[in-house]
């Protein structure tokens, strides 16, 4: 009775193996392009301002998400900020234990109403705390390629 037969050994099950070739390219969009271009060329952060809502978007947006105004005013945002929240990672994306734990934080950038999620460096997981002052460390100009990884990490600002 063919219908009632079950595959009892895995080797008996015949399957076809294949691979669908897919490659995608993702562009950052108009505002994102300008944001990353500025990081690449000048190691600076740019945000957009909504004059109606008195908000500075970081990362920059093309439209205000409150009043839907098209945002035309670009302002420089400091590369310093405050740790808004953080987490300590002990495993990588595959679940493999990391030799050194990594600290990922949401850094609220000074002079903006937003911030960036990035690594913290030059600080141990015992030392890091919410409200800590940090600043961005950029890669050297020649190594920057217009990506969020052009920032190596945020390090504590010791005064």
């Amino acid at each position, binding site marked *: *009775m063919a*219908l009632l*037969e079950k*595959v009892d050994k895995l080797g008996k099950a015949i399957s076809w*193996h*294949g*691979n*669908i070739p*897919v490659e995608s*390219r993702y562009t950052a969009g108009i505002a994102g392009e300008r944001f990353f271009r500025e990081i690449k060329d000048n190691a600076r952060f740019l945000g957009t301002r909504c004059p109606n809502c008195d908000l500075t978007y970081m990362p920059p947006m093309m439209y205000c998400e409150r009043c839907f105004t098209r945002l035309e005013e670009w302002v420089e945002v400091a590369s310093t900020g405050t740790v808004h929240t953080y987490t300590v990672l002990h495993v990588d994306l595959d679940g493999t234990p990391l030799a050194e734990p990594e600290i990922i934080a949401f850094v609220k950038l000074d002079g903006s109403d937003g911030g960036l999620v990035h690594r913290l460096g030059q600080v141990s997981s015992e030392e890091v705390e919410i409200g800590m002052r940090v600043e961005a460390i950029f890669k050297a100009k020649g190594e920057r390629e217009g990506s969020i990884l052009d920032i190596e990490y945020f390090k504590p600002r010791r005064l």
Partner: protein
Amino acid sequence: MTAKIKEFPGTPLAESDFEEGNVLFTRWTPRAEYAWDAGVAIGRYLAELKEGRIIGVRCRHCRRTVVPPRTVCEWCFKPMSEWVYLQDTGTVNTFSLCYVTWNMVRIKEPQIPAVIEIDGASPGVGILHLLSEVDPKEVKIGMRVKAVWKPAGEREGAITDIKYFKPL
């Protein structure tokens, strides 16, 4: 709608924009590997091909033997009742002379796909395969043919374990 809109919004990008670095982008190649399970009936069929045998399945209610095997009879919708080993010989039911390959390359010597009614299966029941070792002009409906198998070591449980059918 298109009559009203003269200019579509958006940012058109050409391949050259990516090549010349006019636009920043990230590349991503997802792993899209898959394994497709052949199922109970076709799984057994392919496993038997690897052994150098053609297997069919019989419906006792309809008194019909079919190949390739299936789990349910499409005539009476009852489960197929028994496995039957078939001959590796058969009769050409229909055929075609094909002067273009699957990827649209012209060829001088035609490929000859044919439906072959396998001996042991009910009349009109057969599988699609290729004919070879035959002059294209000599191929006829009703011609008796026999499977040419790959050597046992090279068989992998695929329909290509039969290289082609040749005239008996």
